[in-house]
């Protein structure tokens, strides 16, 4: 075999401000044309490993303790400056929004080459070459901030590829993409490897990456290297409750645990409630039209309702009107035509503060709302605004802390908490207002599988808690994650081009592949397994719960290895 592009030998790193090592004794190598998947839960050391390879450690993160060796094309990284490394190692950050600095696509893709002081003609040639390679030449003169999530991701990748690195590091490249865009990005990554580049992908969405047949998997846990080798071995050893594996593998692994310990009966079946049509209407949308510019309607003739008992997932591509609709339910927007009734009152005659008692909305990023010096004050902010008295506020805050498991954090500044805790404070802020509907925008984005299932389970459990009364009568969440929707929702709204194109239970709405395709959704292994087992289950379940329906014989028949490209 040729010279390895990357050799990591016994690499360890400790951040200056931490006691514990973030990464310990990591060793692996990667060759030209290979795709390496780096998997593991949040905090496992994936990002630290990436920073060691691209030179941000030690050049930007100074003062830590670094040991071991990294060789790129046989040369030690240690002696290189960031600029010479930037030509060998290209890094695409998790969020393309954080990576893009150019105002226009051309300027963005050219940025690195301009910094290397290449001749202008050479830069323009390389920009066109890489835009063509990624199939985005039509975006060349577009403004970067106005691109869709998938387009931004490809432009960020183009900016890195234009520098012609041998090694490409992708940090959770799929996190903000709708399923169809994620698939397109993965196809581009496969083409990169086929053209001889070495690609390292850090990704929680293991199942998606398996579609492009990675050559090897590096699995990290708490900074330690737990597995290094081919995909099949990884699938056999990985814990399906920690890492999101293809549904068949996850269900089979849990089934075999059940067979080994007969008393265990796998994950409990989630109580998603009865769903549509049972409870009283809390929010009603009647023929809602909305636009900023009359020539480009954002919502068109949307009629539906949110009823007590609903757990609604809003699915659809970016820009299809999902967030705009939810903003109508909280009075941040008012319909141009039609009307929205919240607790029976027309939103044209109410304020956001008044509707907050009915619908509480948790924005995607907790950073957009947290400001108070302590968690307790943060939680008291909403109830105080909407007119609760001090005794009620104290009671609501205590209740919200208990339900969201924030005990002990009340005196701490919310901004000093971890991201996951901040998100819980965001939810608690809504619980404290005693809103009847909890609405969330991408509640699980940026969280690993274990954290996101724990988070969603906790929210679902809240529906049955409280002092004899559930804090929420209905839950609504916007997501790109089809599996999240079919695992937790009892009702799905599908959006495309500003229209509500389907509204019903997951078993019904997700049965139509053509409809999914129109909404830029790609059937997942969990959806396929659910469809196959539907005659026995009668309703869609998550993989862990499906295990009980897998007969031991079927368990042995489930194919292993990579999934075919959809």
């Amino acid at each position, binding site marked *: 075999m040729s010279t390895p592009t990357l050799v990591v030998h016994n690499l360890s790193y400790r951040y200056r401000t931490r006691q514990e090592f973030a990464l310990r004794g990591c060793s692996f190598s990667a060759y030209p044309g290979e795709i390496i998947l780096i998997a593991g839960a949040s905090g496992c050391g994936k990002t630290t490993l990436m920073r060691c390879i691209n030179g*941000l450690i030690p050049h*930007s993160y100074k003062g830590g303790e670094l040991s071991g060796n990294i060789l790129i094309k046989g040369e030690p990284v240690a002696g290189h*400056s*960031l*600029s010479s490394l*930037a*030509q060998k190692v290209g*890094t695409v*950050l998790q969020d*393309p929004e*954080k*990576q*893009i*600095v*150019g*105002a*226009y696509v*051309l*300027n963005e893709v*050219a*940025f*690195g*080459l*301009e*910094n*290397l*002081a*290449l*001749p*202008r003609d050479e*830069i*323009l040639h390389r*920009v066109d070459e890489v835009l063509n390679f990624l199939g985005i030449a039509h975006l060349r003169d577009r*403004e970067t*901030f106005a691109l869709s999530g998938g387009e*931004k991701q490809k432009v960020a990748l183009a*900016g*890195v590829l234009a520098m012609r690195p041998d090694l490409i590091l992708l940090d959770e490249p799929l996190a903000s993409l709708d399923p169809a865009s994620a698939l397109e990005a993965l196809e581009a990554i496969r083409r990169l490897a086929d053209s001889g580049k070495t690609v390292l992908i850090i990704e929680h969405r293991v199942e998606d990456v398996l579609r492009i047949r990675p050559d090897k998997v590096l699995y990290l846990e708490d900074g330690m290297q737990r597995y290094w080798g081919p995909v099949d071995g990884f699938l056999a050893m990985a814990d399906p409750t920690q890492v999101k594996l293809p549904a068949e593998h996850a269900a089979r692994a849990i089934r075999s645990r059940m067979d080994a310990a007969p008393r265990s009966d796998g994950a409990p079946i989630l109580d998603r409630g009865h769903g549509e049509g049972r409870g009283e209407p809390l929010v009603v949308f009647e023929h809602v039209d909305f636009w900023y510019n009359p020539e480009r309607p954002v919502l068109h003739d949307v009629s539906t309702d949110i009823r007590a008992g609903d757990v609604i997932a809003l699915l659809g591509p970016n820009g299809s009107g999902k967030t705009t609709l939810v*903003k109508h339910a909280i*009075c*941040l927007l008012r319909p141009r035509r039609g009307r929205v009734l919240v607790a029976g009152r027309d939103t044209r005659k109410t304020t*956001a*503060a008044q509707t*907050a008692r009915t619908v*509480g*909305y948790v*924005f995607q990023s907790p*950073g*957009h*709302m*947290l*400001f*108070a010096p302590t968690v307790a004050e943060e939680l008291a*902010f*909403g109830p105080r*605004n909407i007119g609760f008295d001090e005794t009620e506020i104290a009671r609501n805050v205590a209740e919200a802390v208990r339900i969201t498991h924030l005990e002990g954090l009340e005196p701490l500044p919310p*901004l000093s908490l971890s991201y996951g805790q901040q998100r819980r404070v965001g939810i608690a*802020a*809504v619980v404290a*207002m005693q809103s009847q509907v909890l609405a969330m925008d991408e509640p699980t984005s940026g969280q690993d599988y274990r954290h996101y299932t724990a988070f969603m389970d906790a929210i679902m459990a809240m529906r049955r808690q409280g002092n004899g009364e559930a804090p929420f009568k209905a839950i609504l969440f916007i997501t790109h994650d089809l599996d999240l929707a079919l695992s937790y929702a009892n009702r799905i709204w599908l959006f495309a081009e500003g229209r509500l194109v389907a509204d019903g239970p997951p078993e019904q709405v997700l049965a139509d592949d053509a409809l999914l395709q129109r909404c830029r959704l790609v059937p997942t292994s969990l959806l396929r397994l659910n469809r196959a087992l539907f005659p026995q289950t009668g309703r869609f379940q998550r993989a862990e719960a499906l295990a009980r329906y897998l007969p031991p014989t079927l368990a042995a028949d489930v194919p292993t290895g990579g999934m075919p490209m959809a």
Partner: protein
Amino acid sequence: MLVNWNYKERNTIVQRLDPRARVIFILCAIVAIILVWDLRVLVLWLAFSLLTLRLARLTWAEMRRFWLVVLPVVTFLVTLTALTGRGGEEAYRERHLNWQATWTLFGRSLSPSLSIEQLFFAASQFSRMLSMAALSLLIPFTIHPAQYGVTFKGLGLSDKFAVATDLAFRFVPTLGRDFATVLDAQRARGYEVERLGGGLVQQVRNLAPLIIPITIGAILGAEDIIDAMDLRAFGTRPKRTWVTQLVYRRKDYVLIAVGVTILVLTIILRRLGIIAFWVPLGWL
């Protein structure tokens, strides 16, 4: 991620001029305007500034937000100066035709006075500030966002400063977008900025739910940008290439020459005392 100003490509006489020439002209004009006290000249400047907006074919819809902020601020400042009688003391010594009023405000008796000098001083201030605002508006609204960096580079800034200025320029509309998002997030929690009461200190404290998330977000955003630039070799070579190119043409040189001439003339006229504070006392 940085957002661009609401720029529209329009083939107008203003946009056809090189952005460097436009910035130089605008700077000369603004300095000249600051040096003038004569209302007659300032009114001409105001007319000229508004004409340039017209020539650039900027629509009211585009500029509305800007003027909705600038007009009340300028009006407030000018009125305050006029009524308190402060400011302009170096421009005039005598006062004619004093009007005196007596108002009671918060239990205190106020007796503002207005003289013809104060009135003309206010009008001069008003015209001056609006002219400067209108001219400044041309920079974000008529310069292609991809040209900011190379424009500032062309004005003599170093590569690093030119890129930094480009980013700083686009930071303003980005802040606007973040402000809107944070305001929405807090309004969903029942926060109503229009109902804020209390004294000045309390009012500032009441803005914390907006100011803190925006500030923290801006700091974290800046760190991300620094990492992203480091990873693409920013600032590691003594020189960088600029893909966007600008070429001076004859009309651009003419524009610069006109700007510089106006500035020099203004300085001379001011030295000669010709464009000093003017009150039409002769008419009275």
